[in-house]
Every structure is written in structure tokens, then in C-alpha cells.
């Protein structure tokens, strides 16, 4: 029984715990860290490697493998011992993958496998759903099962790990709260699903980065420039656009199979702008039609001129 708590002991504990509380309060009010991505830059293609790969197949895993192979294999991006984060689009827990609202789980799992084959120390998969909780969204999307089967880890993004980060190149926003691990990972692979979005027109790679920041809705004011600013900070090592199924209307939440097109395509590039520009063509648009793609290109983050780059198209 706890009968022997003396007043002295009690006061001691109170003093210690209030000290801890004060100190933790002081820490949590720390000023914005001048953090920026410490990641090594996405490697430019060597001779014989495609700048942008487009793979077609009914098999998502085969298409993903073929696209990565055309870029020179995952070894180009992942070095032995690397800490890798894969960022799919897991926006809600409403619908299974057939509805084309969340990234194809086999595309994600194949990336997990190829990263581990290239010697990655660990591969984590994460997103912040806006509808439902992460656990259920991870499960309904099929990505949790596929990732675990491929020996990757699902991470629920912790509220502790968002840090106010300055955005040196930002034109509209100069700082935002970003998930620390996204900035610090050795390799970040951005895996959007290509789908309709009323304001941005399309949700592609750059739009997918909204899932790693706090208060994404505040981004919608001047969305195009703000997304480009964010892209200048986050700089994924590799972007793989899942266009196995695309959602052509009622995005990003979907819910009707009538809005889904089976396009059996995976697009991959170290250049997120080029990957987005190519993905736009599947919807009958050009990269320049999408504000964030155009503005990202203007900031020098990539190219939207698909005629000047080496594109390798594969039928796997």
C-alpha cells in the first residue's frame, strides 16, 4: 500500500514534475529551426539511363519494376544502409484501391522490395489522411498489408515530429511545419496516384507533398505557388506516378467506379516536374496547364519540356 508517502516526498515529486513540465513547455516553444532538406540531391541520369520512364502493363508490380529498371535500377537512388521513406497518396479510408483514390498497393510494395534489394537499412511508408485515421486508411488502401508483406514499415506520422522549417527559395511561403523525417531521410520516394482535383486540376507528385505538412488547407490560398515553394524544400529523390488507374472526376475523394479509367501506366523520374508533366498528358492536359507544375519549372525545380528529355517507354 502507498501509505508511506510523506508530505516531503510529495512536495519533492511536485517540484520535480513541475520543473519537467516547465522545461518541456519551454522546449516546445523553441523558435523555427533553420532546417532544410539534408538529403543528397536526386542523381541525374548517367549514360544509358532514361530521364523519364513510362512503363505499361496490366501488372502493377511488373510496370513498376520496368520503370525503375529503365532509370538504371533502384541502386541509382538507394545506397546500402540508406534510410528510405516512401510517400504514397493515402488520402482517406473510404474506398479500396479499385476506386483510384489511393496509390496502388503493389506499386508501393514493389518500391519497398527494390529499395531493400538495393540495400536500404529500412523502408518506411507514411501519409496523413484527411478522412479517417491513419491506421484505417493504411488498411483500407491495401498499402499496409502490401508494405508489411514486402518487409517495409508503416509509420503513423507523429505529432511530435513536425518542425517549423524555413523555405529559403520560397516565393509565397518562407516557412511551414514539415515532418522532420521527410526532410532527413536519405531517400524520399514520392508515389502519387494521378487523379482529378478541382482547384489544382490534377493531383500529382507535387500535390502529394501536402501530406507531409501541418495545416495543408492553409496551402489552398495561392495553392500553385505554395506547392512549388514546398517542392523547393522537400525535393524527393524519385517520383513514381501511379497511373495504373486514374480518377478523372470527383477527385480527390472519388467513390464512383464510373470516374475511374484503367490506364495501366507507371511513370518514374528523378525529376518530379517532368513526371507530373507527363502524367498530365494522360488526362489530355499539358504540364503548363497545372499551376504547380508550371511554377515549379519556373523555379528551376525541373523541366516541363518533354521534348528535350530522354523518355523511355516500355511495355512490360
Amino acid at each position, binding site marked *: 500500500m502507498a501509505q508511506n508517502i510523506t508530505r516531503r516526498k510529495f512536495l519533492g515529486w511536485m517540484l520535480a514534475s513541475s520543473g519537467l513540465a516547465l522545461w*518541456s513547455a519551454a522546449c516546445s516553444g523553441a523558435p523555427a529551426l533553420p532546417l532544410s532538406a539534408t538529403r543528397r540531391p536526386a542523381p541525374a541520369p548517367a549514360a544509358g539511363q532514361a530521364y523519364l520512364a513510362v512503363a505499361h502493363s496490366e501488372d502493377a508490380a511488373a510496370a513498376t519494376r520496368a520503370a525503375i529498371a529503365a532509370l538504371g535500377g533502384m541502386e541509382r537512388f538507394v545506397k546500402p544502409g540508406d534510410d528510405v521513406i516512401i510517400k504514397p497518396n493515402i488520402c482517406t479510408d473510404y474506398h479500396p484501391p479499385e476506386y483510384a483514390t489511393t496509390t496502388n498497393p503493389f506499386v508501393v510494395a514493389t518500391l519497398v522490395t527494390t529499395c531493400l534489394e538495393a540495400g536500404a537499412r529500412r523502408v518506411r511508408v507514411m501519409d496523413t489522411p484527411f*478522412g479517417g485515421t491513419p491506421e*484505417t486508411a493504411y488498411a483500407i488502401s491495401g498499402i499496409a498489408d502490401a508494405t508489411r508483406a514486402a518487409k517495409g514499415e508503416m509509420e*503513423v*506520422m*507523429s505529432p511530435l515530429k513536425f518542425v517549423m522549417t524555413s523555405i529559403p527559395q520560397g516565393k509565397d511561403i518562407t516557412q511551414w511545419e514539415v515532418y522532420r523525417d521527410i526532410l532527413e531521410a536519405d531517400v524520399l520516394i514520392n508515389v502519387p496516384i494521378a487523379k482529378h482535383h478541382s482547384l489544382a486540376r490534377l493531383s500529382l507528385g507535387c500535390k502529394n507533398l501536402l501530406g507531409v505538412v501541418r495545416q495543408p488547407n492553409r496551402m489552398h490560398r495561392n495553392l500553385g505557388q505554395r506547392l512549388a515553394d514546398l517542392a523547393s524544400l522537400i525535393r524527393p529523390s524519385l517520383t513514381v506516378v501511379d497511373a495504373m488507374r486514374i480518377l478523372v472526376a*470527383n477527385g480527390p475523394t472519388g467513390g464512383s467506379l464510373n470516374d475511374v479509367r484503367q490506364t495501366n501506366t507507371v511513370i518514374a523520374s528523378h525529376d518530379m516536374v517532368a513526371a507530373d508533366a507527363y502524367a498530365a498528358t494522360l488526362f489530355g492536359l499539358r504540364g503548363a496547364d497545372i499551376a504547380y507544375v508550371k511554377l515549379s519549372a519556373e523555379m528551376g525545380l525541373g523541366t516541363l519540356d518533354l521534348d528535350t528529355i530522354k523518355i523511355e517507354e516500355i511495355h512490360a
Partner: protein
Amino acid sequence: MRKANMWQIGRWLRQISQALFFLLFVYLLFAALQRREAFPLADLFFRFDPLSALGAMLASREWLPRLALAWATVGITLLLGRVWCGWICPLGTLLDWLGPGATRRRTQSVAPRWRSAKYLLLAAILSAATLGSLMLLVLDPLALFTRTMTTVILPALNYAVTAVLGGLYPIAPLRGVLDALEGWLRGSALPVRQPLFAGNWLIAGVFVFLLLLNRLASRFWCRYLCPLGALLALLSRVSLLRPLIGAGCVQCGRCSNICPVGAIQVEEDFRIVPSECVACLDCFAACPERGIGWRPVALRSVAVAAKGLAWPAAAEAYDPSRRQVLAALGGGIAGVVVMRTHPLAHAPEPTLIRPPGAQDEAAFLARCLRCSQCMKVCPTSGLQPAFLEGGPEALWTPHLVPRLGYCNYGCNACGQICPSGAIPALDLARKRQAVLGRASIDRDRCLPWAHGVACIVCEEMCPVAPKAIRLEEVSVADDLGQMVRVQRPYVLSDVCIGCGICEYQCPVEGAAAIRVFRTNA
């Protein structure tokens, strides 16, 4: 000193039972915390609660099969008395643990006549229930404890743990441990987003008051106030086995000193009052003569009846009088009448949005146990305890406050966990069609409407396919007077289901520019 008698083992078993049931209670709280799939037995305690069952069945005039396990509690009470109170009830256990130590029990004095309060409360609950009102079930011990855990203790715990972890996080050497801890707890035991509950201060206040009363007398709540305890006390008067002090009694008084509920009448030759005894076995173990044991009641013999084996048990001096009972019954009725003449009972606040499928207000109020489990399971914490939005009768019933959390399109957990069916257990396809309310846009606050600023967040978030919020592209003057092209949202009322994610996500500061209001169902 004599060696501890064999009832010491029984007493230990009781303590183990209390600890296990308490742990089970806490485990079930966490097992169904903000989950889309409600854990099937998460409402287990409520299924064994005869007060909730009786109240809800009286009020709804319906047999509620899910609450039928309450017969088990009735059965064990008819056999052994208030075993529920002494061995199972998690609130009773907590009060035991927080109560004054055994040595101080003797000095407490509250007039015995207050024991009748619980019976009067029970009478008022049951008479109100006959009119379809369950407002006083807010005082059911399980509901009271669950509500406090849901809206006060668990959110505070999450806040505290997150604050401490967040404070430690900047210390680099600790990050590995903290990451592992976060990976383990976050999303399962600790919610990703801090739950916030309106009115938590009042719910906390009631609970703190209860704990303070416990300083006046150990298990003050159980002795004087608990309406479930009162119901079980009535049943205990006809229980078949009674604890009885045997003939070898040396009148040492150890039993009456140790009894946590003051059930042993020293003045009456150490008689144990069956309706107050919670069968904790403390006195059994304390008796130096090993003289206390269970005895079957005497259905015929008058000789032993005087020693406490009369069946049914004799009335106690502090039992409520017939007049008091009638007053309590009438009070329950009068209370309902007064509550029903409150304006909000006729026209609730337009923001009183009931959980999916619970739009028939009278039917809902006649079934809702006020247990708050729906608020606990709700993954967005959008379900909140009502204060006066639906009138006083609807105190602490669940309603959706979209600015705090939306009704998740992928979730039907509240209907699964509701023990009484007040929120119907709809499958996901049917729940998605349940209309909670309708959204409408405040054009004076909406960014595109009022300021010509691009924003389509409500349309983006709308989960209905095709969307209930549509966009119209127009040329309008912005705040600088320049003509700009913007998409303006509008709501298709007949398609809107009132889930409230538009209101939740609306980026306008303060009150949202799109709000959900109750429909006149």
C-alpha cells in the same frame, strides 16, 4: 494472534477480481478508442448493467436483447447479494482504492438516513423512464465513469504524454527511444490528433465531487447515491445466501470497524444488513473467531430470522417511507414534464446533429444510456456530449460538432458500439446514406463568395459521389476591386448527408463558412 482464517483467501480473490475487472474496463476503453471497427465486446460492462437495461426497456417499451445479460447480474445478486458492487463495478473499485484506509473507517459519520437517497433516485429514474426519459441515467455508475474517462481522463492523458514526449524530443540521444515509443503508442493507444470534448469541465467537476464525498465516508457513492446499487440492494433483500455472524461472536467489533460500507449494525448484536453488504469478505477475514459465514436464508423458521436470515429481509430504519417513495416517483414524472416544457425540447438548437441513423429525437432519447461510448469510439472525436442544445433532457447525449470532428464517411463504429441500439447498427453502405443534417454556405464568410479568393476545400473534402458540393466558375471583383475568375461552391441539399467534413476542414478562421444544420426529420 490467530492465524489468518481461510476467508483471507476469499478476500484476496475479491481484491484480484476487482483489479481484473478494473483492468478489463480500462482495456476495453483503449481497445475501442477512436476505432472505425468497434471491438465487438467493447460495451461488455453495460450489457451486464440491469439499471440501464430496465431503464431503456421501460422508456422504449421494447425488449432490447443486447442488454439481456443483465439477467446474469440479477441472478448473482439474488443468490449472494451485491457481489456486483464489491467484486466487479469498476467505479466501486476505484472508490475502494481511493477511500480512507481501513483504520480510519470507524471515525466517519454520515447520518444513516441518507442511505435512502439512492432508493429515491432509483424511483425517480424508473418513473421518468416510464415517460420515455432517461435523463437521470447520467448517474448510472458505469455511464458516469465511462463518460469521465472518455471526455476528461483519456484526453488529458494524451495531452500530458504528448507534452512530455514533445518536451524530451529535442534531446537528440533520446530520439531513438521516443521514436520507438511513438511508433508503438501513436495511432493505437494515443490518438494522432488531440481529442477535445466540450463540457469536460462539468463532467470532471461531478467526478471530483464524487471523489471528495468519498473522504466523508468510504464508498460514499455506493452507500448513499448509486442508483444501480439501490436496484441491487432491493434484490439483495431477497437473496438466498446471507453473510451471518455466528454464535461465537465475542463482540470485538473488528468486523464493523473494517466494513467499507458500514453494513454491520453494532447496536443490533452485530447484524449484517443484506441490502448494504457488498460481499467484500473483509469482515469474514477479520473475525478472530472465524464466526462469519454464508448461511441460507430461513424461509420458514422465525427463530433464526431475528439473526438476519429473514426472507425477505426486514426493513431497515433508514429505508425510505412510502410517502418519500411516492414523492420520488412523482418527482421523476414532474421533472420530465418540466424538462419537456423547455423550448429546446420542442425546437432543439439547429446545431444538434445526432449520430447517423438516430434522427428520431424522441426514440433516440428513450434508448440512449448516456454511456458516451460512441464519443469514445468516434475516430474524429466529432461526437460530443450535448449540454443544453437539445434541452435539459438531452444532457450528455451525443451530438456531432463538425468544427471539432466530422462524421467519417468510412466509419460506422458508433452504431456498432451502442449497447441499446439508440444509434442503430447500420452497415457501411446504409450508414453512408444516413442523413445527419444539411450543409449550407455562409456567403459573407466564404473566401470565393466574399473575397474572390480561390478555395474549394469543401468541395474537395465532400465524400459523396458524385459530390454534394459543386463549383461554379464566375468572374467577380476581389477585395482590391479587380475582376478575377474563381470557382464558387454551392451545396446540393438533397445530396448532402451532413457529415460535416466541409465544416471541419473549412480554412476560414473561427466559425466555418460552411456549416451543417439539423434537418427537420
